[in-house]
Structure formats: C-alpha cells, structure tokens
C-alpha cells in the first residue's frame, strides 16, 4: 500500500516534467513574443529584454534553467506583464480563491448529485424519479458559461439579491453564484451516474440476500448498495475535477472572482509565459494528485482491489 503510494508519486515526477517540456515548446513555437506591442520597439530594446529574461538562449537551455530554478528554489520566475510580481505571488493570490469556490462546487456537485441519484433509483418510476431525471437532463445542458449569465440576469439584474461579481474574501453572497454555475452540470452528471448504477446494484443477487434477511430498506440501500453504486461515481470524479479546473476560467471571467483562471486567460493573451507555465504546472500537479486520491478511494471501497 505504502510502496504503491511512493510508486505513484515517483511516476508523477516524469509526468509533470513532460508537461513542462511540451508546454514550453508549444509556447516557444507559437508566433509572436511577450514584448510585441502595437508599435514595434527598436530592435536594441527587444534584444535587451530578451537577454534580461534569458529568451536569447537556445530552447534547451531555457527549459533547463526554468526547471532548475523550480527544483532548487521553488521559483517559477517573474511575470512578464505584472513587472513587480513573481509567478509565486500571483498564484498565492489567486489560488485560494479558486480553491474555495472550487471545493464548495465539488462538494455541492457530489452531495446533491449522489442524493438525487439515490432518491431517483430507490423510487424508480415514480414522480420523484421522473423529476430527478428531468432536472438532471435539464442541468446537463446548462454548462457553466450558460449558467453564469443566466444567474447574473436573474439574481443580480432582476431580483437584486446577489452581487454580480467580486470576491470580498469569499463571503457567501459572492460565493453562491460561482458555486452554482460551476457545479450544476457536474451535479447532473453525478446524479445520472448514481441513479443508473444504483438501479443496477439494486438488482444484484446480494441485495436480494439482504432483503431476504428482513433488513429495512434504508439499511439495504445505504449499507449494502451504496458502496458498489458509488464506484462509477468515483471513476467520474477525476474527469469532473479537470472539468472544474477548466470551468474556473469561465467563472473568473463572468464573476470577476480573481481566481487563478483569470490569470490563466490573461497570461495566454499577453504571452506572459512564466505565469502561463506556472498555472499549467499547478493544474497538472493537482490533477495528478487528485487522481491518486481517487484510486485510493476506489481501493478503499472495493476490498477486491489491493495495491
């Protein structure tokens, strides 16, 4: 078990290294540079800037320097655009925001999705089931970039209940709409997955054994059926996590929450390579870590899987 953990973490290192190299090469290959402006700067100035940031070096040297300073000093370099800020500072500023509404969205998607799915399966072919299926089909066609403007329209412009954007240290009025917008479509997918897998599990032979024992339905569902019914949901959590990271870009754009997604978009538009790289590595690292957690969770649920 412990050795498995170490093995997985050891594999993560080359994975991230490949991510760094590929991202760097892609950026390098993209036409244009970070200091291009409307009016071309004199070539001497450009050359000076390139020298200052080491962009005059061959690609291999650039990548080597970049990786070395991360490994030795955990330094992701300076931002090209925000002259007085390092990438570390930018991430330290934006990441807690993303993490806060991201974690709430994830929690909401899983809790509401799983509950809805279970309720629908247990009350199969009743009004409750049809309602849950209807809601989750409806919600699935409402991705974050559709939800966000709708929410703003209704709760800010019409009802005036919630602020249309901002963060304010993550107070709940600022949190509500980002969380709903980000979680809705994932909640719907989780509800759908839970419902169908719960329906399948409830038909299993061992569930009949549990019922033959005279166990109350609540116990049959939660004690005997829930674990196996959750396995497909657990498998979905990895992709959902990645989807939410991507979604945070949209959230930061619509609600001006100031999360990491905002810097990601700006850095891409501005060719702020160090910030773009930093955010990419952060997202990649989190994904690797999260998938490891998912695998551990899977093994914890299913006793037949042992590492």
């Amino acid at each position, binding site marked *: 078990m412990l050795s498995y953990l170490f093995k997985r973490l050891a594999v993560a290192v080359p994975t991230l290294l490949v991510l760094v190299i590929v991202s760097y090469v892609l950026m390098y290959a993209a036409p244009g540079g970070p200091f291009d402006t409307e009016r071309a700067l004199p070539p001497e100035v450009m050359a000076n800037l390139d020298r200052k940031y080491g962009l005059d070096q061959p690609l291999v040297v650039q990548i080597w320097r970049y990786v070395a300073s991360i490994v030795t000093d955990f330094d992701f370099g300076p931002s090209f655009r925000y002259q007085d800020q390092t990438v570390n500072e930018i991430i330290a500023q934006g990441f807690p925001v993303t993490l806060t509404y991201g974690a709430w969205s994830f929690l909401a998607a899983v809790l509401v999705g799983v509950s809805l799915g279970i309720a629908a399966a247990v009350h199969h072919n009743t009004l409750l089931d049809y309602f849950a299926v209807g809601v989750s089909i409806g919600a699935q066609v409402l991705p974050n970039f559709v939800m966000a403007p709708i929410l703003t329209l209704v709760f800010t412009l019409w009802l005036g209940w919630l602020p249309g954007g901002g963060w304010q240290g993550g107070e709940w009025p600022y949190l509500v709409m980002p969380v709903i917008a980000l979680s809705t479509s994932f909640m719907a997918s989780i509800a759908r997955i839970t419902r169908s897998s719960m329906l399948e599990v409830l*038909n299993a032979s061992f569930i*009949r*054994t*549990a019922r033959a*024992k*005279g*166990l109350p339905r609540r*116990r049959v569902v939660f*004690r005997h059926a829930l674990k196996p019914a959750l396995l497909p949901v657990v498998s979905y959590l990895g992709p959902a996590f990645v989807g939410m990271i991507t979604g945070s870009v949209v959230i930061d754009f619509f609600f001006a929450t100031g999360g990491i997604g905002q810097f990601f978009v700006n850095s891409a538009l501005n060719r702020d390579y160090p910030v773009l790289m930093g955010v990419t590595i952060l997202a990649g690292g989190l994904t690797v870590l999260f998938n490891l957690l998912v695998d551990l969770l899977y093994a914890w649920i299913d*006793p037949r899987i042992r590492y």
Partner: protein
Amino acid sequence: MTLLRVRNLRVSFATGDGTVNAVNGVDLDVEAGQSLAVVGESGSGKSQLMLAVMGLLARNGTAAGSVELESVELLGLDERELNRIRSRRIAMVFQDPMTALNPYLRVADQMTEGLVLHLGMARREALAESVRLLDAMEVPDARRQIAMYPHEFSGGMRQRVLIAMALSCRPRLLIADEPTTALDVTVQSRIMRILAEARAELGTAVVLVTHDVGIVAGGCEHMVVLYGGQVMESGPVDRVFAAPYHPYTEGLLNAVPRLDRDDSRLPSIPGDPPDMNRPPAGCPFAARCPRAVDRCRHELPGLLSRAPDRRVACHLPLDGPA
C-alpha cells in the same frame, strides 16, 4: 399444523415480448419440521415459486393466489410487514453462492446484522454467535475467517456462510435453492448433512429446491415434481421413488445414476421444456411424453389424489388408467 400452505399460486412476468407465466397454479403444503424437495428441470419455475413465497420476485413479476405461513396470508403484505417475517419465520438460501454475498462487506458484518436487528443482540454477542454458527457449519478457523471478505472464501464455504446466516434467527422454514449445485460431490454431501442437522436441532422445516433428483433420496421426506410451472406429482419420497405415477417423474428418476443398474449412458428425457410465453393447452409435458394420447394435448389433467398422501396430474398414470 401446516406451516406453509400455498394454493393456486401463479407467478407471471411482464416482458418486452409478452407475459411469461413461470408458475401456473401450484399447491404446496409444508408441515412443521418437515423436509420437502421441490424438483424439476431448469426453467420449471422452482426458484420463482420460492421467491414468490418470500415476496422477493423481480420488479416485473407478480404473484397471485395464496401463500399462508402459520395461517397468515403473505401475498399482499407490504415490505415492512414482510420484514418482520423474513429471517425470524422464513429464510432462504439463494441459488448461486458466488453472488449471494455482498462483496463489499466483511462476512462478520453480513452475519451479525440479522442477529442485531431481529434478536436484539449487542454487536459483540452477535459476533460470538456468528462464529459459533460457522463452527457448527464446519467452517475451519471461523474466528479468523469471519473477518474476511466473501471473495476470500471458496464456493462451498460461501454456501455454508449463507446457510449459517439463514439459520441464525432460527426460522421455522428454510428454503434452500439448489444449495449443492456447482459444488463438488464431497462438499455436496456435507451441505446436505448440515441441513439435516439443522433440521434435527432447530426443528426447522426445509424446502430443498433442486434439479438433482439424486440428492433427494437421502435428504427429504416429501417431494413435489414441478414441470412448466405446474405440479406433476407429489408424495413421500420413498414411495414416489419406488413407483412413480407420472411419466415425467419416471423420466427424471431414470436420469439418476444408480448402483443397481449398469448405465454408462443415462437416458435423459428427450425434447425441451415448454415455452412459458405460450403455455400449451393440454398437459405441459405432452409434447415430450412417450405415453401421450390426443386427450393429453387438449385437456389439462387435474392434480388428483391416487393413493393416501399421493397426487398426480396425468390422464394415463403409470399405475393404471385414471
């Protein structure tokens, strides 16, 4: 007193291509402490008959008729009322031991929950009792084994766990659906002995469902022969074996290997069981019956008493004209 009294039980399933009539008007009596074998080929409706008694038919199935346990009608009871009877009055061991245990829960958790719920035991006490039950089933090293997951048990061991679990709340009636199928012969005879011991010790009546007539002879007092969801013949095992009345019973008995006969090739009954989607008008066995006459194909024979304790549904029973 009659423990279980089944009258005109019908089970049908709604499917994509019409209604499947799996059980068609079965009568059955089990006396307290008795052992009854329900035999018949695959698909004759044995399992569905018993699941209907337990109130555990699949979602698309419905049961009609009457199932009385100690004079209480079970058909029509809701799940909560049935839960008061299951385990404490009537328990069932299902057909396939490989899939009947929950793979995600330890055997200990699965065995103790009934004891805690129905007998009000504390968890500790229930665990000790479960170990004792497994010991009685000859599960080696039960104290350690009980903490394991089902996939760590062999088929025979799982079957013992299931039987121990079913007997844990000392039911009056145990239904065992093919408890020996898929097990090797030595394990088979052990399981049969375990069932016999439970019956002697707890006074539990046992309904043994099987398509293997071979295990019926030593293990049961009475037998019911099922075909096409109908009772073909019923009576005491020794007398039915000595002289079956129904050609189908005779066919089944001839398919059993016997020591007193040299049979390198067993005569299995030629032909296939009837299509439950469209049951034939007359005797369901007529199409395969060597004795069938025109009447058999048009007129369903009633289940009639022919001797004390013996009934047969046949126009031309083997002991002479009806």
